[in-house]
């Protein structure tokens, strides 16, 4: 099977440093940071360092384009995508043109005691509004995968293009600074007292930011805008299977994602490569990354984090950072890590505070996030890759390493809803009409004779996913003992983590923002449920969480099959897991190949 070349073409980002990619790049060249002290009770009761988008300028643009009916995040997305489309000139009405949106929290700033159920609280709603504004005729795809969302979206786009679903995809990522997010990261005591200092001995945490970015991926060279075509060469996702918020102690899982992405790209660490890592500047994230890069033998390569410029922009991070990587490749310049002084990670990394001109060919971009997920992609200069086609052609290597395209089969199916638990068409447990969800799910837990104290700490969505997986995997002897990297998970729902978001919001309103609960906040991401499943059943392969208005089973099964082939998985759990208030539904399939 021949894979098409995927070009990264037009792009646009809006951040604390400006309203276009060019503006942001120029500010970076002048060593400007978008991070400043913020003293605004709208976000937090105490001063913190954050990166905000200029609201006055935003207001002007909203007026100019008549976007008053959209939420602020939707406005930002539209303004960014608009630039990308104008730059490229592509027609999005075609049936082979798609939109992928990556966001961790969408319009969560609109969540309040008075508004717990509004349409705008659902990510699909925002995505559909943005898509219909531009006239996309295909349904937008939404990724909600914690801090790897942006990189995840690039990988989803790559796979869908390679497998013939689309020829062109606009990948957009966006997240706002909000009281919800700012209090949550403070509850985790992971916010730096000053501007964040990735990999530095003095680092003491992350700085939050907001941004929006979009980039057009296409198989057609005519949409290439830059002088040097940049292509997407590889990508992979793994899970630590260790802890829902703390990074891996060994870095082995990020290392695995890096290895897979590099192998797909058909390059080794010896080629002209630089690394754009996640680099949040928390003690443990940066430690873990240094271990992973050491394992991947990339310690000698230039490594950078862009967080000191933009802050951690969550779902947008993977997209805007990829855009800046593309800029660096196109211009043969390597941006310094602003403010870096002394290396402070267990394995030394090659980090520079200053920008410098370097001939660049490839970039490895990584991200890691809550739920234990890791993602890595490789982008590079098309010209350079084709010159190497005899030995290093990405396509040749890719074809060589791909397993035979045999189809995966469904070995079991488990459904849990208001009537109870059903496994492969047989009723396992009947739900008493008088039982509420917490009572019912505990009965299900006891019926399985499990002894796992962490079950009680999970939020309701995770409990539902956990119990469904327990039933689903019963037929596979010692499922948890099978090789961790051979097991993956692809999941979707409609409400994301809204049920827990509401609990967290209520808690925040009741106790004040200095006493926000970290144990609640950690579950305000739907993919943390995947993390819980991966920890218990020791699964380290593919991890992707989609948000869909209704369950698109056909898409999910197909996507899981693609992921299984690409990451050489033996098993993949795929399905739907949604819970909001009294309504819940899970429908899981176990696929085998």
């Amino acid at each position, binding site marked *: 099977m021949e894979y098409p070349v995927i070009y990264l073409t037009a792009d646009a980002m809006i951040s604390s440093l400006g309203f276009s990619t060019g503006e942001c790049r120029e500010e970076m060249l002048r060593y400007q940071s978008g991070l400043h002290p913020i003293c605004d009770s709208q976000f937090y009761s105490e001063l913190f360092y954050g990166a905000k988008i200029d609201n006055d300028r935003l207001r002007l643009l909203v007026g100019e384009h008549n976007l008053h009916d959209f939420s602020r995040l939707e406005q930002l997305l539209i303004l960014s995508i608009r630039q990308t489309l104008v730059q490229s000139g592509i027609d999005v009405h075609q049936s082979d043109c798609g939109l992928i949106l990556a966001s961790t929290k969408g319009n969560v700033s609109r969540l309040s005691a008075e508004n717990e159920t509004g349409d705008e609280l659902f990510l699909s709603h925002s995505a559909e509004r943005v898509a219909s504004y531009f006239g996309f005729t295909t349904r937008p795809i939404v990724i909600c995968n914690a801090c790897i969302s942006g990189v995840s979206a690039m990988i989803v786009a790559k796979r869908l293009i390679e497998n013939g679903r689309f020829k062109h995809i606009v990948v957009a990522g966006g997240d706002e600074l909000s009281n919800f997010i700012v209090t949550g990261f403070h*509850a*985790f*005591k992971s916010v730096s007292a000053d501007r964040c200092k990735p990999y530095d001995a003095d680092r003491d945490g992350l700085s939050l930011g907001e941004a929006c970015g979009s980039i057009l991926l296409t198989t057609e060279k005519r949409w290439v805008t830059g002088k040097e075509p940049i292509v997407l060469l590889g990508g992979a996702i793994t899970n630590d299977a260790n*802890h*829902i*918020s*703390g990074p891996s102690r060994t870095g082995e899982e990020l290392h695995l994602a890096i290895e897979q992405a590099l192998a797909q790209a058909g390059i080794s660490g010896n080629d002209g490569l630089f690394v754009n890592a996640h680099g949040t500047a928390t003690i443990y994230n940066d430690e873990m990354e240094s271990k992973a890069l050491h394992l991947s033998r990339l310690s000698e390569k230039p490594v950078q984090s862009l967080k000191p410029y933009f802050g951690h922009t969550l779902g947008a991070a993977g997209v805007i950072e990829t855009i800046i990587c593309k800029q660096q490749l196109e211009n043969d310049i390597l941006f310094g890590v602003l403010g870096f002084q002394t290396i402070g990670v267990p394995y030394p990394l090659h980090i520079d505070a200053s920008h410098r001109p370097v001939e660049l060919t490839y970039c490895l971009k990584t991200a890691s996030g809550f739920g234990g997920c890791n993602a890595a992609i490789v982008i590079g200069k098309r010209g350079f890759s084709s010159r190497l086609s005899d030995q290093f052609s990405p396509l040749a290597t890719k074809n060589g390493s791909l397993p035979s395209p045999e189809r995966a089969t469904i070995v079991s199916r488990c459904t849990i809803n208001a009537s109870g638990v059903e496994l492969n068409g047989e009723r396992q447990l009947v739900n008493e009409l008088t039982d509420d969800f917490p009572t019912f799910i505990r009965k299900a837990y006891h019926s399985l004779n499990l002894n796992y*104290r*962490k079950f*009680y*700490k999970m939020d309701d969505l995770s409990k539902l996913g956990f119990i469904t997986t327990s039933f689903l995997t019963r037929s596979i002897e010692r499922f948890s003992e099978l090789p961790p990297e051979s097991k993956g998970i692809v999941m979707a729902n409609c409400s994301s983590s809204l049920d827990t978001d509401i609990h967290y919001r209520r808690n925040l309103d009741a*106790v004040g923002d200095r*006493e926000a*609960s*970290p*144990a609640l906040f*950690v579950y305000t991401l739907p993919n943390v449920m995947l993390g819980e499943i991966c920890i218990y059943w020791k699964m380290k392969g593919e991890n992707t969480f989609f948000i869909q208005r209704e369950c698109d089973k056909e898409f999910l099964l197909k996507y899981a099959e693609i992921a299984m082939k690409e990451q050489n998985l033996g098993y993949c759990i795929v399905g739907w897991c949604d819970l909001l208030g009294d309504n819940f539904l899970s429908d899981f399939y176990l696929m085998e190949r």
Partner: protein
Amino acid sequence: MDQLKKELKEALIQALNLEDITAEEIVDEDPLFGDGLGLDSIDALEIILILERNYGIRLTKPEESKEIFYSINTLADFIGKNRKK
């Protein structure tokens, strides 16, 4: 002191969702983290909140808490010496 320990255990069970255990089952000298009660870094952050809310003690650095949070005994001892309410 015994009253404080009992109060602490109940607060932990409630705040950390330790549904399958009673206050009587938590042994004063046993480790709370790792092998003992199996608490983790998120639980440690919740315990910091309990200290602030119930006893007026503000711990800013989670890493300082390792020895203090070792067991119910060490925790009660620390609270006894530092409580402001």
